[in-house]
């Protein structure tokens, strides 16, 4: 088993709305690659060189570009950025919100097996392409759409609302404490965002009082007892991450200390929520 190292990468500015800017998947990928190269010192030249040696593979995580952007086959889209990707094995990985995580998982396996020295892992979503109602419907396809989402407005928050109901029923903490805890989490998350220059909500106002004021015009209920402040909101964003082998590390990286991946994994629950 080969060691796997995290060389680094970059995320896009999650505050941006690429749809409003009238830009598509190629633009967000190109920009994020440019930024990731800047952050790591890699470039298309190294990818092209390793491509000739069959030592690089790309893994593209994405949930539902077919619906949101009318575009499938995202693995091949990297060739639109630069000829360095010609001939590079590249495929799209989909596992709803965990899409990019399974892309990373696949990349780790390839390096561990010694098949490649550089894994280019990409996560990309353009979700501001449609209004919130249509977006909610598309998100519903991550659930058991036919049985639990079709024809429902904002199906995903509603499913989470059911999860909240079940949690309150199952654990003896009381509804008030549970809901207050959710408001505290929301307040904390928004405060953390203010310290992140690439966070979607870094300029938004939120505090515990606002998060506790559910069912108001500025914090409407969207899923049973859950309000907007209890949900993460969709945006447009991309991430590029480079994972490398021991050989790559020795050849191309001057840094002494570089994070190593020692483990990881994931597992499934039943899709249908009411049968869990």
């Amino acid at each position, binding site marked *: 088993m080969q060691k796997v190292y995290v060389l680094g990468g970059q995320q896009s*500015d999650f505050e*941006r709305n690429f749809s*409003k*800017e*009238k*830009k*598509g998947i*190629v*633009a*967000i*990928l*190109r*920009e994020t690659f440019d930024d990731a190269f800047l952050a790591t010192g890699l470039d298309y030249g190294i990818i092209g060189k390793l491509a000739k040696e069959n030592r690089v593979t790309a893994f593209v995580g994405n949930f539902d570009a077919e619906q949101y952007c009318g575009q499938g086959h995202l693995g091949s889209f990297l060739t*639109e950025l630069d000829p360095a990707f010609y001939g590079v094995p590249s495929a799209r990985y989909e596992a709803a919100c965990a899409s990019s995580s399974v892309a990373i998982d696949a990349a780790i396996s390839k390096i561990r097996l010694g098949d490649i020295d550089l894994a280019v892992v990409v996560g990309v979503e353009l979700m501001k392409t449609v209004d919130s109602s249509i977006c909610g419907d598309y998100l519903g396809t991550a659930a058991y759409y036919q049985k639990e989402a079709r024809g429902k407005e904002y199906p995903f928050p509603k499913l989470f609302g059911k999860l909240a109901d079940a949690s309150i029923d199952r654990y003896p903490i009381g509804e008030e404490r549970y809901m207050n805890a959710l408001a505290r989490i929301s307040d904390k998350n928004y405060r953390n965002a*203010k310290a992140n*220059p690439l966070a979607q909500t870094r*300029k938004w*106002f*939120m*505090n515990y*009082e*606002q998060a*506790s*004021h559910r069912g*108001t*015009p*500025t*914090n409407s209920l969207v899923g049973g007892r859950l309000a907007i402040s209890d949900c993460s909101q969709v945006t447009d964003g991309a991430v590029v991450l480079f994972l490398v082998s021991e050989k790559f590390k020795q050849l191309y990286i001057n840094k002494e200390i570089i994070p190593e991946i020692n483990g990881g994994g994931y597992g499934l629950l039943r899709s249908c929520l009411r049968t869990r």
Partner: protein
Amino acid sequence: MKINNICVLGANGTIGSQIAGLLAAFCDAKVYLVSRTMEKSIKAKELAVKSVRADAIAPLLIPKTYQDAEECIGSSDWVFESVPEDLAIKEETHRMIARYRKPGTLVSTGTSGLSIGTLASLYDDEGRSLFFGTHFFNPPYSLPFLEFVETRWSDKSVADGLFSYLENTVLRKAIHVKDRAAFLGNRIGFIFMNEVAQFADLYKDRGGIDYMDAILGPFTGRAMAPLATVDFVGIDTHKSIMEHLHACEPDFFSTECIVPDYVSRLVEDGRVGKKAGAGFFKQEYDGTGRRRSLVYDIASDSYRPYKAYALPFADRMVSLLSDGLYQKAIDVLLGDDSEEAGICRYFLVKYIICSYRSAKEVSGNIADADIAMSYGFNWVPPSSLCMLFGRRKGIERLMGNDDRIRESLKGFDMDLLDEKPGMTDIDYRRYFKASR
């Protein structure tokens, strides 16, 4: 710095109510909304809540009238004045604040260009030392830019504390500017837009207003085309900013600051833009109830439908921008020999020159022009545009082929073009829209 009570005078105005909401939210302070009538103040409170999308701040917002001014001002740590941009009204308001404020109370004005020193002089020594200009941009929740103005009487440590508070607590992208007409952001933006309005007159036989907006649309690094922006802001506001700047500093871009006659005529007719239902543009409903957009045709003094101008260079730029190829899009502009591309280049070079000159004079730092134009106007930072144009060498190349550009650079310190501003966190790419 901790501010517990704030008094906003002129809270019924669009900007006043929104700033009241912003301050209640981010300062977690009690905010008095003072207007002429209680009805207006209650309405202002609704607007304030709506502007930051937070019902939770409602208990912090206290509607009041000028009858309660003594109590509100006297019990506030910070008094923010947001009354109309009329020196007489402002002076009257500040005399009142000076009468009622307790020692130690901060006072600031939201004026977009009147003299801060003149207003500060209405206070006693202690009051002057705590008086500042805090120019917010509209709408303040989504445009975080703020110009901060000190006077010769300002208490430096209080000024530093308030500036830091505005940056870190009110989440403003704040810059220091001198007490000069129109400060920095409006100076750059409105000079640019006024010259576009002049060119619309010059090219009125080709279409005028929509012709110029087509040449300088969102693909040139802005959210909205220039004359559409003037119409949105108010043509009367534009005219008064330009006339005030020209009167105060007649030598600063003197030709570019002259308001065209047709603009003055529209203002006289009350056609001051979107807020009046007519201006450079207007909406009309036909017999079937269908809405159509019309543009003011300077040549015929009437409104007509928009024209679809064929601008191949713009189409090529838009196509490249949609794929994130920013430098290539600018290279298309630089290499295109159409007259419209030439006009576009001229204006973008003028934007760089005016920004650099203004920044040097008004704030002393080119990076401040980047902050002003991106966070205050949603326009591409001028230093990023300068970089995409190839800095001094690139612009000198353009001078060789274009008399207008050569003329506009006379007396300009070309070394500035190679100056790299201090680091800002501004990503220029978001300002280029892939649309005409």
